[in-house]
């Protein structure tokens, strides 16, 4: 079976301008620039089979976006070999363009003053779609993504969640075999995040579309993906199933309780206080030992909560844990 994505010993080095110190340095910078090389990716190797839903995660500056840009043909690698659907992305970008889709959470491909449907129709022209096929697909996605009532409104009047649903449809209309998603839930509220995650997961399950999903949000990868690749400083740190990662690193929640009482004391298995201030307590909870429901019940039995939030631990913390674990290995 041909891999959807094959990456072997990928390396990407950027040349970054450095500035000399002082006025003399600034003057010299005008005539001769000094540069230094920064390794964004180093010796990265992985393979993704068709239909896999893979979370591609790491802290800021890990090299996630750079890798996706190499895979979509935008950047030329400095070293290594890459095949996406059997094509070399940077040499066959135009051919690859018909077979991949991209969604960047912080960017938009929708025309701001026009209804999203106009962008959909334009993309059909750009991707050389047969008009009848396009009409059928458009109707399908409009229904599946619940866009019916949004299609007549200019994009500028849509909420971020509504806009992201439109962005997804815009990227799916040419039926790409691989969808690259770069932080598609960034900035969304809890409800909108849940809707987007469900839509992405269900659509991929139904169509067998391959997903490569980058996010800082552990919830994204837990809800959408089956496998996770963690990179750190441009290198592969971990490649395993989300289930294994959940058992090892993400079976924890961060719970913050604000209470009328100045202090909250709890003694439950797997629960420890990580920060404390008057009327506020932050707890780290191992949900395998104490469930969130049990914890909330225990909190309600002891104090009168004014506010209570349950969050996933930050990605940086998970990567730190994985990294320290990897370093501790002989």
């Amino acid at each position: 079976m041909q891999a959807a994505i094959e990456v072997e010993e990928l390396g990407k080095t950027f040349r970054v301008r450095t500035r000399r110190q002082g006025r003399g340095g600034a003057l010299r910078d005008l005539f001769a620039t000094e540069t230094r090389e920064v390794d964004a990716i180093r010796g990265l190797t992985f393979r993704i089979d068709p239909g896999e839903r893979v979370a591609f995660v790491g802290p800021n500056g890990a090299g996630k976006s750079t890798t996706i840009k190499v895979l979509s043909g935008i950047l030329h690698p400095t070293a290594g070999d890459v095949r996406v659907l059997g094509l070399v992305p940077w040499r066959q970008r135009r051919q690859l363009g018909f077979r991949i889709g991209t969604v960047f959470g912080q960017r938009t491909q929708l025309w701001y003053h026009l209804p999203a449907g106009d962008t959909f129709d334009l993309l059909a022209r750009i991707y050389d779609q047969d008009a009848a096929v396009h009409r059928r697909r458009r109707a399908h996605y409009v229904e599946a993504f619940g866009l019916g009532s949004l299609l007549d409104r200019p994009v500028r009047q849509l909420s971020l969640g509504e806009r992201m649903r439109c962005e997804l449809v815009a990227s799916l209309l040419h039926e790409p075999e691989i969808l690259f998603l770069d932080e598609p839930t960034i900035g969304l509220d809890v409800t909108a995040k849940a809707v987007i995650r469900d839509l992405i997961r269900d659509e991929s399950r139904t169509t067998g579309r391959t997903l490569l999903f980058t996010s800082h949000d552990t919830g994204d990868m837990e809800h959408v993906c089956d496998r996770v690749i963690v990179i750190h400083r441009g290198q592969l740190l971990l490649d395993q199933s989300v289930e294994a990662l959940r058992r090892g690193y993400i079976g924890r929640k961060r719970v913050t309780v604000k209470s009328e009482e100045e202090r909250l004391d709890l003694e439950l298995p797997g629960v420890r206080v990580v920060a404390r201030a008057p009327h506020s307590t932050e707890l780290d909870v191992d949900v395998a030992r104490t469930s969130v429901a049990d914890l909330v019940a225990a909190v309600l039995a002891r104090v009168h909560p004014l506010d209570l939030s349950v969050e996933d631990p930050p990605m940086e913390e998970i990567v730190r844990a994985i990294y320290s674990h990897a370093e501790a290995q002989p």
Partner: protein
Amino acid sequence: MTATATEHRPGLPGGKYLAIAHIAARQAVEDRAAMVGRVLFQGLILLIFSRLWTVVIADGSLGSHSMRELLWYLAITEWVVLSPPLIHLEIEEDFRSGDVAYRLPRPVSYLGSRIAEGFGTMAVRGSALAVSGFVWASLLSGGLPPDPRGLVLVLPLGILAASLAVVCIAGVGLTALWLQDASPAYWIWQKANFLLGGLMIPLEFYPAWLASIAGKLPFAAMVHGPGHMAFGFAPDRALATAGALLAWGAVITLAVAATSRAGLRRLDVNGG
């Protein structure tokens, strides 16, 4: 449900770019604030110059040109330079923000799509500015130019000139690939139009040596060429200007395309 080859139906060559120009034109119609801003700015410039010419030209003429002709000249040159959208800012932002990551994987030329958007927006803004310019100039100068037949020639020349300006502004935007900021190049472009194009003052009033140099450059063909039609019906001169615009158009389009290819080769998109 993934795409099959039979569902791809390549359309007419250029059809994608026409579609892009069309949607950009529709967006320009909806973006009324930008349109109204330009129309008001156009009126303000013409108002200021109409007052200025009144003071400077005490006897009602400058050289062989009347105040009315000079104001119509300015209305035409302003129309040409205000019609093209500032696509250099969008191109700069594409590279600065990484938006180019969305555009490059598409099966369409990045530069071609940006220029097509520029043409679409220009079509709408240019139409609105043509009407408003006509009204402003008629009101402020007190009527039509002495030989209004020249205005018939302004339309094709102005469209050619503004189209060439869109390509030039795209080239200005591409300098951001090297400089990270397109504003220095845009500043030079603006001043070149102003000084070498004869935006405010016709080249006839320049020292002979400067007028001769300016006349050999594309700025004069773009700005002074259409503007000169305010001074009378001159089909031969209009034909020569159109020829110059087409020749410069070919040269500049090739240069901008080569710049784009070179720039995209060395592209290091922000992020990682």
